[in-house]
């Protein structure tokens, strides 16, 4: 198939950005979206133009490194990561717009690459269970109800890609944060720090410049791992609980 690609180019954090249009011919439906960009980049280098910078690593939908806004949809038209999106989802003659995640808390680096280290700092604030190496009791000493273990797993499937933020009209990271609060809060091991955790993480989230949540649900729609919207309810419930305890 032949495609028209409108791609955001920006030389650096302070440089002005612009949309540049490229024509790409003979795209196979078996290519992943990123392989399609690889092919474009090879042709740009051959022509002496600098290739388009974009992030990716595992290319199997689990590391969370890739993420593009594709014609207005985070990770494109189907529920998956950009690296697992395949060109058979598109048609000959399509015009596709490709942009980076846009959020104040994700500063621009270059072209389609942004800085998501704010996510790491939210985890640093409290997204963990304090269990020093060597201090753990025998694994079977604390049984975990299967229902809770399954819900913890479902929330723990978050890959930290940032699609939730990119899709949110307020650039809020509540789904990302709710997923971590739910993962750890469902487990008995996570109880001692449960309320302190949520308060610290929310404070860091706001400090980073993420927006407030207005329950639009755009985050869960965009999430490639289908993290359910109700993790935000869990977060809010724990936050109310924490504030009620005077934390």
């Amino acid at each position, binding site marked *: 198939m032949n495609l028209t690609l409108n791609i955001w180019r920006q*030389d650096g954090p302070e440089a002005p950005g612009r949309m540049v249009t490229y024509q790409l011919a003979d795209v*196979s439906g*078996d*290519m*992943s979206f990123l*392989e*399609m960009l*690889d*092919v474009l980049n*090879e042709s740009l*280098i051959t022509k*002496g133009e*600098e290739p388009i*910078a974009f*992030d*990716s*690593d*595992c*290319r*199997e939908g*689990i*590391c*969370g*490194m890739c993420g593009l806004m594709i014609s207005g949809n985070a990770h494109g038209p189907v529920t*998956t990561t950009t690296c*697992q999106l*395949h060109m*058979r989802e598109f048609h000959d003659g399509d015009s596709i717009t490709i942009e980076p995640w846009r959020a104040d808390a994700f500063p621009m*680096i270059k072209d389609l*690459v942004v*800085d*998501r*280290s704010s996510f*790491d700092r939210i*985890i*640093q604030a409290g*997204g*963990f*269970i304090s269990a*020093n*190496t*060597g201090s*753990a009791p*025998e*694994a*079977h000493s*604390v*049984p*975990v109800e*299967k229902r809770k*273990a399954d819900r*913890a*797993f479902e929330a*723990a*499937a978050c890959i*930290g890609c940032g699609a939730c933020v990119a899709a949110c009209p307020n650039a809020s990271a509540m789904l990302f944060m709710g997923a971590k609060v739910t*993962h*750890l809060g469902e*487990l008995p*091991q996570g109880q001692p720090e449960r309320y302190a955790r949520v308060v610290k993480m929310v404070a860091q989230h706001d400090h980073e410049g993420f927006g407030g949540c207005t329950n639009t649900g755009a985050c869960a729609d965009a999430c490639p791992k289908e993290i359910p919207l109700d993790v935000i309810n869990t977060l809010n419930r724990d936050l109310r609980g924490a504030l009620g305890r005077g934390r």
Partner: protein
Amino acid sequence: MSETIPTPGTPLAADAAASVDGGLVHGLYRDGDKIADTAAPAGPIDKKWTTRKFEAHLVNPANRRKLSVIIVGTGLAGGAAAATLGEAGYHVKSFCYQDSPRRAHSIAAQGGINAAKNYKEDGDSTHRLFYDTVKGGDYRSRETNVYRLAEVSANIIDQCVAQGVPFAREYGGLLDNRSFGGVQVSRTFYARGQTGQQLLIGAYQALERQVAAGTVTSYTRHEMLELVVVDGRARGIIARDMVTGEIQTHLADVVVLATGGYGNVFFLSTNAMGSNVTAGWRAHRKGAYFGNPCYTQIHPTCIPVSGDHQSKLTLMSESLRNDGRIWVPKRREDCEKDPRDIPEEDRDYYLERIYPSFGNLVPRDIASRQAKNVCDEGRGVGPKVGDFRRGVYLDFTDALKRMSAEAVGEKYGNLLDMYHRITGDNPYEVPMRIYPAVHYTMGGLWVDYDLQSNVPGLFVTGEANFSDHGANRLGASALMQGLADGYFVLPNTIRDYLSHAPYPAVSEDHPAVVEARDAVQRRVDTLLSINGERTVDSFHKELGHIMWEYCGMERSEEGLRKGIDLIRSLRAEFWRNVRVLGAADTLNQSLEKAGRVADFLELGELMCIDALHRRESCGGHFRAESQTEDGEALRHDDGYLYVAAWEFGGSPDGGDTGIPILHKEDLVYQAIELKQRSYK
């Protein structure tokens, strides 16, 4: 399982066939002195680790913050070590090339992690896990290291559960286990098909907790480009900030490389796009021995290549082999047919035919090689890529009849969905197609029992070292090794090294530091100034073709010699004709790739030399000249019961690779009897 005593050496074995010409063996390398591991204490194998931990000197808690540790890589081995050493109070600097430590490629491991918990009361024990791992590695790993791995495996599960890793559980709330990778006990802990992800997130969270505590400083989007060796000791690294391009000097009391495997030398592999050998290769050029570089694991259940645009290969957990049946048509003329139209009697379920007792569950190396064999016979399926069809069917039709679609979905749903998404074919309706792909490299930098390389102060953990998997890695043991090294082994052994610290202060003006920094700068400048005709990827792809063709699943002396010649000329062309655009002082992904491919072009040659010198078939390394009458791998314990540890023979500062020097570490098995593997 039947096991036979090895046949005595055949004329092909060992050095009998090695020609020595002008001091060069096979015209390619020199023989060096033998080496041995001197770090493991004496005593019975089940007491060695306890003894070593006791004998390792202590570091006063008040002194720890004055001691600095550089850890490169944030996967299971690096992330766990950084977190643990931070908790202990050392001053840790953690480096990764990704934008977050959470993205290291350990995250992509699907299947599970072994531990000798014996929760199923099915006869498992530390000794059995040890035995299975040594046997699975085809008796080419170091016994003492593997025993310790099995010994600490149970602690890993305890640690991960305490961190909140959501392992699969039974209705009673206890942990579930499954049997994995052809072993006969259920010792594999798992979190659906995302075990690596969950374990890595556990280590990542522990690491970030230490970042918040101020013990660990995290350097993301930083790439190590050189090792700093001062007065014979590893004292730091030169790293490039991949966003600003700044060349930075980081000095410390000790350096740990936890930088993963080098499967991307094949271009197509299941590794992440950024996975590379640069950190390890730079250390090799500075004196660290490279152990068994040719030992590569080719994983049988990957999604086949679909075309020239392919950038990576995707693995599907081999747990699919528990219920899927592997076959190809008996006749070549059926290969183009819709598989559903090929009647039962015209199908060749070749693994079940050749290995009736293990069937589809034979180890990875055997499943991979047989897939290659049937495709080489012209019975491969799927679209032609080049002149060949490279695929075999993995068929769930019987399982769907036996178990219902719901039950199959419950067990394998995420994998089948992934296959559907990538190929566009629905595995509930049409048999899947699979083909082997490069997955894991057992080789790596040589280390002793303490995980210290032959360069004092340079420790190497996880996939980056050579030690635990011999010539073939068993399923669910990579995660085990990464976390064993990171949480439990390294923090104890590095303590002994640090107890002799602080080492003399090194300034950034020290000649060795300046030299390393200048070398990095020169290389960056050179790559940007060549301005030739070919892209970095085109060189990488060509190297990958050479490696796959001549140093892949089956190797021969003739092919390897050809491979070496091709790599040498490709490397020469690279430095003459590569085109890297853009600038040094900005994010420049072509420049990053160029540096990595330059190192792969040197490593590839050493892999071929190692493969050529080892005239035996063992584990994932199959030599055409060394097989039984019915085409099975034939090992030669009389000639090759050793680790090949290669010393870099060229100038460390630049120039070409010189003549490598082979140091042999004899493998001594005292706790295990050597046997020839047989899965028939």
